[in-house]
């Protein structure tokens, strides 16, 4: 019963969000600071949820998200640059070797598939080992990918260390929002299916899961590939948002940032990851902006406020959260109507008891 009410509540909320996004697209400047936060929020929400599928729901610790985003972004760009523009993009490589273009939606799917395929290849040897090795292997993989994509010899395909551009991109908020909603909905459906339960069983107790007939290697690989599929799509969205893509930018910092978001939101909570993503980018790009600009009160210059101070404050806030709220905003629960009612119901009771 509560389940049904919860899904109706979620559907209504989602419909309201779609309307809000449509309105925002009309009233807000496309490159304003709020739009930046919202667009990045959508893109990184998807990536954070994909990472949570692996780290929070399957109990596998991967540090390769930036690498798989890189692969997704490049796959999308390489396959969708219109042939007419290739000569100017690949100016040092005679227009490159790819001389066709697929539609943007096919490019998005291809981005996911290529990332998933590479995940499958790495997973074959690594997922047989204890799970710590996955973190090391994926971290190494991401760094290697970054180097390979900048390699001159692959220039005809990747444009070497030069950026790729002129592929189809978006300017509306609706596009990344819709793609993120569809992808996250798919992940949620998977998590609530029998396979999602198998993933959670592996997370809770590998030995028991195996004794219940769950093929560990098979299910871990599946979770890893699906996670990377969506990270690839996230990478393609990021490439679209930036309108240019360069391998250099996909440093492991990016992965740590996403990991941080997942931890802040709560390992094993999809809504937590989404909430944390928006809070994270709102704080880092918007609310804490003022810390970076010198401020004069009368003739007194407020100390410390200068370019770069924002990062310091931000890091301290993050450290405090990780130290004192280890379970993150949501723990492993989800934001839902019945959860909210319980929360306020309890608060209400406490309040009346105190009177």
């Amino acid at each position, binding site marked *: 019963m509560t389940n049904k009410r919860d899904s109706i509540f979620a559907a209504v909320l989602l419909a309201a969000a779609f309307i809000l996004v449509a309105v925002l697209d009309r009233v807000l400047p496309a490159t304003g600071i709020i739009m930046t936060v919202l667009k990045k929020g959508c893109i990184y929400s998807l990536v954070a949820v994909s990472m949570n599928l692996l780290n929070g729901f399957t109990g596998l610790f991967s540090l390769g998200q930036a690498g798989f985003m890189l692969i997704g972004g490049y796959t999308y760009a390489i396959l969708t640059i219109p042939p007419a523009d290739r000569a100017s993009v690949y100016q040092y490589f005679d227009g490159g070797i790819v001389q066709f273009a697929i539609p943007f939606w096919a490019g998005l799917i291809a981005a996911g598939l290529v990332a998933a395929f590479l995940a499958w290849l790495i997973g074959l040897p690594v997922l047989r080992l204890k799970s710590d090795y996955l973190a090391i292997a994926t971290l190494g993989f991401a760094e290697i990918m970054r180097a390979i994509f900048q390699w001159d010899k692959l220039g005809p395909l990747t444009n070497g260390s030069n950026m790729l551009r002129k592929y189809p991109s978006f300017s509306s908020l609706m596009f990344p929002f819709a793609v993120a909603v569809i992808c996250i909905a798919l992940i949620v*459906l998977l998590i609530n*299916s*029998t396979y999602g*339960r198998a993933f959670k*069983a592996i997370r*809770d107790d590998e030995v*028991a899961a195996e*004794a*219940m007939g769950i093929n560990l290697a098979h299910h871990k690989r599946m979770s890893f590939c699906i996670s990377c599929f969506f990270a690839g799509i996230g990478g393609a969205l990021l490439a679209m948002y930036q309108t240019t893509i360069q391998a250099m930018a996909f440093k492991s910092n990016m992965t740590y940032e996403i990991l941080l978001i997942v931890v802040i939101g709560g390992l094993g909570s999809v809504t937590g990851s989404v909430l944390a993503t928006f809070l994270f980018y709102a704080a880092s790009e918007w609310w804490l902006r003022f810390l970076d600009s010198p401020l004069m009160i009368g003739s007194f210059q407020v100390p410390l406020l200068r370019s770069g101070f924002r990062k310091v404050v931000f890091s301290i806030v993050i450290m405090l959260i990780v130290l004192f709220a280890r379970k993150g905003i949501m723990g492993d629960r989800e934001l839902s109507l019945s959860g909210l009612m319980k929360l306020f119901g309890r608060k209400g009771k406490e309040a009346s008891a105190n009177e």
Partner: protein
Amino acid sequence: MSDTNANVLRLEHVTMQFGGVVAVSDFSMEVNQGEIVALIGPNGAGKTTAFNVITGVYEPTNGTVYFNGEAIVENYPKGKMKKLYLGDSSTICDKVISKTPDKITNLGIARTFQNIRLFKKMTVFENVLIARHMRSKANFMSATFRLNLQEEAENREKTLELLKLVGLDGMKDDLATSLPYGKQRRLEIARALATEPTLLLLDEPAAGMNPQETLELAHFIREIKDRFNLTVFVIEHHMDLVMEISDRIYVLDFGRMIASGTPEEIQNNQHVIDAYLGVQEDE
């Protein structure tokens, strides 16, 4: 007894060494269709290790495990183990068969754990439902797009049935770890039954139970055995439970089998009294 076709489970010369520790030593035994067989012995005798070998958690140093006549586990000592290994039967095996635990569960062997291993962050209901996953025909696509609704409904129904059977349907939405000890053990049995086994391995199912609960458990084991046409192999310390339900008993001490036979034979066996039963009485 020696009719091999009736053997549901047969161990031949099973030895399990951890470095210099011989946890199970040249252990041969069998469990026949429809029997309840008990494995007893002092703590550290190697009983749980024997279960772990049967279910594929450990690869034995030497020996073979047959399930319904098929070798599911087989190994012989190699390298360092060969030097350490002192038994004469090391020559009887010459190939390595090591099925993973999930494959063995798939064949029809289900187990419970001595140190309860429930899925901690899941509800009572989910803990049993998860064991239906193995028999599910859905792939991840059809499961994601909800094309397996009928199968899912059947699994939920079956799960609820099993929870009713163990008397836990009233608390199906509670976290598994919030249950009292005895109920957690029953939940583990329900979870094992959900995999549709033909052989059920119970590792100290009465541990932590009071005499009343132990008695109920004895009836319960008989009941599920008849209802699901099971063969049961049980490790237990409560002698009243063992004597009450077992058709036959094997006794391990320091990894070696020191006796086997009917409950009466075991109760009157001087070795067993010296090594185990006598000690029990002192406690």
